C-alpha cells in the first residue's frame, strides 16, 4: 500500500502458486526421479485501485494467466493473500457472503469459441449468472435484463435466440462480455480477451471495454502479451517474467522510461509500424523452464547487465518514479534509466 490510504480495491500480497508436475509415484520410485514443481507464480504483490485498468504483460509461461485464475478463485493460492475490497478471500466466509463477493468479480476468457457452451442459446448463457445469484425478480425482469445486456455489448435482443456457433469470433466475445456483466460486477479479470481476434475486431472490443468501464465504473485486471494493446488500455502495467513481477509502473512511464532490462527487451520486440527505421535488436535466448528457474534474478542468463550479485541474490522490488522495479543494476545505480520516444502513427 504505497500511501496507506487503504483505497486499494484488489490487493495481492506475496501470492504464490506452485504446480506439481512430477511423474506418477510408481514411476518416480522405480526410476528414482525427484518431484518436479513448476513455480508458476512465485511471490507477487499487486495493488489495484478502484476504476483503474491494471495490465499484466509477459511472454507465454510467465504466469500471467495463473495470476488471473488465482484472483477469481479458479485456483487456490499455494501461499499469500488475495484481498478484495478489504475482504481476505481465503478467510472463512459463510456461503452467502462468499457468493456476494464472487458476484462482484467476473472473468472474460481468451477463446470465445471454448468459453461459451455450444448447446445453450445465448439468452441462457447470459441469464445463467443472473439466475445463479438470484438477481432477477421473475421472468419478465430476467428477459429485460438480458436484452439490456445484449444492447450494451452492441448486439440485438433477437441474438439471444441464437446459438454461439452462429456468431463470429468478435460477436462471441461480446456475448462473453455480456455474460460477465450479467451479475453487475465491479471487477473484471480479462485474460487475453482480444488475442484470438482479428485487428479490426480487436479495436471494436477494446473500444467497447473502455465504454463499459466508463459507464459502470469497472476495474479491470487485463492480461495480455500484446504491448501495443496494453499501452492503449492500461492505467498501470506490471511486467512478469518467470512467475515474478519485475517492474510495475504507470503506463506512460513504463513505455517512455523503462527501467528493468527485461522491460526494455520487451519494448524492443514491438514491431515498428511507423517505418522510422528504428533498429530492433532481437534478444538472444529464450525463456528458461519454470521448473528449474535460474538462481538469483531469474532474468540473469539473458541480461546484458548481469553481474555476480544477480546470479546469487534475488532482487527485491524498490520504489522508483511512481512504480517498483526488482533489479540489482537499477538499485545500485549502475544502469541509467532509458528515455524512449515514439512517433505517432499518422
Amino acid at each position: 500500500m504505497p500511501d496507506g490510504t487503504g483505497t486499494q480495491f484488489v490487493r495481492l500480497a506475496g501470492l504464490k502458486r506452485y504446480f506439481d508436475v512430477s511423474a506418477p509415484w510408481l514411476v518416480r520410485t522405480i526410476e528414482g526421479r525427484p518431484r518436479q514443481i513448476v513455480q508458476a507464480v512465485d511471490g507477487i504483490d499487486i495493488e489495484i485501485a478502484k476504476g483503474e485498468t491494471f495490465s499484466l504483460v509477459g511472454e507465454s509461461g510467465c504466469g500471467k494467466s495463473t495470476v488471473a485464475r488465482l484472483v477469481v478463485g479458479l485456483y487456490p493460492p499455494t501461499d499469500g493473500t488475495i484481498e478484495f475490497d478489504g475482504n481476505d478471500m481465503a478467510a472463512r466466509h459463510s456461503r452467502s457472503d462468499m457468493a456476494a463477493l464472487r458476484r462482484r468479480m467476473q472473468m472474460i476468457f481468451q477463446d470465445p469459441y471454448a468459453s461459451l457452451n455450444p448447446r445453450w442459446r445465448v439468452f441462457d448463457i447470459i441469464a445463467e449468472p443472473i439466475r445463479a445469484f438470484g438477481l432477477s425478480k421473475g421472468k419478465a425482469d430476467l428477459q429485460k435484463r438480458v436484452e439490456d445486456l445484449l444492447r450494451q455489448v452492441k448486439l440485438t435482443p433477437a441474438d439471444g435466440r441464437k446459438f454461439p456457433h452462429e456468431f463470429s469470433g468478435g460477436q462471441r466475445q461480446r456475448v462473453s462480455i455480456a455474460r460477465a456483466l450479467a451479475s453487475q460486477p465491479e471487477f473484471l479479470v480479462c485474460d487475453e480477451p482480444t488475442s484470438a481476434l482479428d485487428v479490426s475486431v480487436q479495436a471494436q472490443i477494446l473500444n467497447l471495454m473502455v465504454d463499459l468501464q466508463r459507464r459502470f465504473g469497472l476495474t479491470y485486471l487485463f492480461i495480455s502479451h500484446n504491448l501495443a494493446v496494453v499501452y492503449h488500455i492500461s492505467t498501470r502495467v506490471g511486467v512478469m517474467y518467470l512467475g515474478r513481477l519485475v517492474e510495475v509502473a504507470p503506463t506512460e512511464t513504463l513505455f517512455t522510461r523503462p527501467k528493468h532490462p527485461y522491460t526494455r527487451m520487451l519494448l524492443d520486440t514491438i514491431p515498428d509500424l511507423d517505418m522510422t527505421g528504428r533498429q530492433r535488436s532481437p534478444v538472444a535466448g529464450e525463456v528458461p523452464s519454470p521448473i528449474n528457474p535460474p538462481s538469483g534474478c531469474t532474468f540473469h542468463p539473458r541480461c546484458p547487465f548481469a553481474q555476480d550479485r544477480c546470479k546469487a541474490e534475488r532482487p527485491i522490488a524498490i520504489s522508483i518514479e511512481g512504480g517498483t522495479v526488482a533489479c540489482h543494476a537499477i538499485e545500485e545505480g549502475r544502469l541509467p534509466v532509458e528515455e524512449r520516444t515514439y512517433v505517432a502513427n499518422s
Partner: protein
Amino acid sequence: MASQTNNPPLLEVKNLRVEFPTRRGTLLAVDDVSFDIAPGEVLGVVGESGAGKSLTGNAIIGLLEPPGRIAGGEIRLEGRRIDNLPYEEMRKIRGARIGAIFQDPLTSLNPLYSVGRQLVETIQTHLPLSAAEARTRALDLLKEVGIPGAESRIDHYPHQFSGGMRQRVVIALALCAGPRLIVADEPTTALDVSIQAQIIALLKRLCREHGTAVMLVTHDMGVIAETADRVAVMYAGRIAEIGPVRDVVKHAKHPYTKGLMGSIPSLGVRTERLTQIDGAMPRLTEIPTGCAFNPRCTERGQRCLVERPDLMAAGTSRAACWLHDRGGVGAPIVKEMVDA
C-alpha cells in the same frame, strides 16, 4: 519494384480463382487474384482470417486441401506454368524450387524422426548427394539458422526443441534444396514476441544472402512493415490494395486498409478510442454485390453497391476502390447506415 525491372518475375499469379464446391453451392474463396514476385523480393500478404491469404499461398505450392480447387487463372514460376502440373511433377518442384514454412512448427515436423534424418531425407530427395554429404549439408543448415550446438542437436527429436528452435529447423528444411521462392504462412504467429523478432531477423538475413524471394502471409501488419518490400492487402478473397510497403502502411489508399491501420493501437499517442471498422468480414456465402467492403465502408457511394472495382492506379499503389477512378463512387447514399 517488380514493375520497374525488365527481369521476368519469379512468380506470376494471374486471375487466380480458388473455389470450394459445397452442398449449398460453390464458394469462391479466392476471386481473381493477380500479382507477381520479383527474384529476391519479399511480398507480404496481409488480411483478416478468411480473407483468402493462406489459400492463395496453398494454391501456389499446390497444397490446396480438397475439395478446394483452382477454378481459373494461372500460376507461373520462372515462366513455367505450375498450376496444372500432375501431382508427381509438382512434388519435384515443391521443396526444390518452392519452399514452405507453416505456422505451427510442431505439426510441420515429424515427431518420430530426428531433425537430422528429416533434413537428410529432404536434401537427398532433391539433390544428388550421398548420405554423408547430405548430413554435412544438414549440419551447415542448422548452424546457419542459428541452432546452438548443432552437432549434438542434429540427432534430437522435434519435441526436444523449444518453439523458436523448431521454427528455425523448419526454416532449415525449407532452405534445404536452395529454393528460389519461400511461401511462409504465418511463420511467427505461434511464437512469443521476443522469439518473433529473432525469426523475422533470421528470415530476412537468409533470404538476402540466398537471394530467395518470399511470399509472407500474415495477419500481423507489424511483421509486414518490418520485413516486406511490397504488400498486398486481401479482403473477402480479393486484393483490396497492393503497393510498396511504405506507401500502403503510411498512406493507405483503400478505405479498408485505412481502417485496418487505424485499428492497430499505436505507441506514442494515447487515444481514447481506436478507429474501428464496424461489422465483420462477410462470410463467403454472403459476399455483397458491388464492392465486397461496401457495407462497412464510410466513403461508399451508389456505384459501390452495384459495380465491383478492379485494382486501379492510386498513387504509387494500386487499389480496388472507385474513389480512385475518374468516375468516383457515384451518388451519396441517403439511406442511413444499417449498423450504427
